[in-house]
């Protein structure tokens, strides 16, 4: 009979295959010997160290096996003939479950902004929006009213983010059609105008900084990591300033960069030049399903330099579809207890027949 034996002093490894797709099950050969192992379906699948499934993996796998952290991760879209080599314990800080703890607290968040750190509270309807028909302004008593878009203004084919400047009674909408335009309507003299072009930069959201007299527009992160800023008191010389932001640490943890659009940056408050941004799911999705807002990151940005600091984050991992199906109690490989319906990792059966 063929037998396999480790060098003296080296414990036998435990091999746990995990597979997302239904159908044929994975198999394991250990030093040429087929071994009987149960295939797990309850791990968040990933082949990459970027994205929410990797974050779910580094959180849930250690939890289920009762260890502090992953020792290493090797991955690729497709395996090659050259083997993966598992030779060392990685010191990569992102393998730590709470790796973001070290990133927050570096800067002081202005007192006026602290209460805003958290999930974005989606409104059922935005107070003002710009549609193909014109500005729609929500009213508390009389319902929403429409200010029709005249024919001497450019067409608006996609609903655009809009805000109201309470100081001057002006409505601003930022279109995403073609080059993108900032369109304004003055309630005082009932006049429309195109303020300036966005030069093909897509503003994802728009924030009115009443004190600083500026519109601040976080860009679509699929396009670039930056802010567009319009200084309102510049009148006819209005140009959109562009500020590139530093890397947004921890952003990849709340989406799957390979398969999903990036989160939306929502400006929720400003103190001087320090802007608080919450990265979250697109607001239209949040309105449909408020639960998706629970995965967020908070960033404090200096709007003059683009310097960014992470100042808060949601702790629970955002689990992909494979991990979402089953989140069982955590068995330890050092105990024999196992919850109902659980598949325990099996030790290798060394008496199986050779390949």
């Amino acid at each position, binding site marked *: 009979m063929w037998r*396999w034996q480790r060098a003296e002093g080296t414990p036998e*490894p435990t091999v746990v295959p995990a597979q997302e797709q239904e159908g044929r099950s994975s198999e394991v*050969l250990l030093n040429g010997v087929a071994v009987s192992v149960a295939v797990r379906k309850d791990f968040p699948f990933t082949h990459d160290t970027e994205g929410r499934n990797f974050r779910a993996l580094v959180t849930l796998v250690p939890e289920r096996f009762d260890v502090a952290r992953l020792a290493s991760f090797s991955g690729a879209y497709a*395996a090659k003939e050259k083997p*993966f080599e*598992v030779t060392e314990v990685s010191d990569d800080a992102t393998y730590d479950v709470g790796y973001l703890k070290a990133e927050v607290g570096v800067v002081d968040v202005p007192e006026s902004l602290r209460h805003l750190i958290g999930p974005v509270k989606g409104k059922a309807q935005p107070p003002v929006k710009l549609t193909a028909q014109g500005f729609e302004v929500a009213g508390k008593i009389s319902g929403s009213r429409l200010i029709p878009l005249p024919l001497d203004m450019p067409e608006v084919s996609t609903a655009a983010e809009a805000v109201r400047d309470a100081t001057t009674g002006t409505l601003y909408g930022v279109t995403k059609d073609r080059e993108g335009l900032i369109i304004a309507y003055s309630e005082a003299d009932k006049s429309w105008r195109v303020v300036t072009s966005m030069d093909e930069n897509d503003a994802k959201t728009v924030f009115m900084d009443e004190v600083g007299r500026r519109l601040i527009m976080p860009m679509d992160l699929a396009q670039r990591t930056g802010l567009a800023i319009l200084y309102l008191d510049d009148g006819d010389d209005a140009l959109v300033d562009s500020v590139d932001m530093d890397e947004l640490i921890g952003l990849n943890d709340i989406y799957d960069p390979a398969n999903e659009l990036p989160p939306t940056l929502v400006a929720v408050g400003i103190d001087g030049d320090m802007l608080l941004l919450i990265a979250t799911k697109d607001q239209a999705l949040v309105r449909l399903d408020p639960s998706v807002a629970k995965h967020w990151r908070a960033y404090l940005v200096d709007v003059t330099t683009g310097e960014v600091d992470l100042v808060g984050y949601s702790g629970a991992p955002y689990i992909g579809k494979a991990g979402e199906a089953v989140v069982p109690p955590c068995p330890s490989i050092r105990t024999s207890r196992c919850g109902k319906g659980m598949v325990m990792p099996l030790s290798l059966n060394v008496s199986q027949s050779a390949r």
Partner: protein
Amino acid sequence: MFRILVVICGLVLTGAPALAAPEVHVVGIYEGYGRSNGEVHGPLAKVVLDRPGAEVLLVLMSQSAVRWDVEVAEGRGHA
């Protein structure tokens, strides 16, 4: 009396070797490779494990079914 108790507890705590936590290593792929040396075959993935002296738990993760071929560096076969 108290001092003796502390000593006994110390013996109990340190007498048995603590159970070391295993190292959990993960390999993740979307799919295996299906051709080698001109031969077409089922999806394969190879892993070499070289962690002498360590208790290892190896999670082999794939999107679709794969035959995982694991070579343990310290292993040796014998009849």
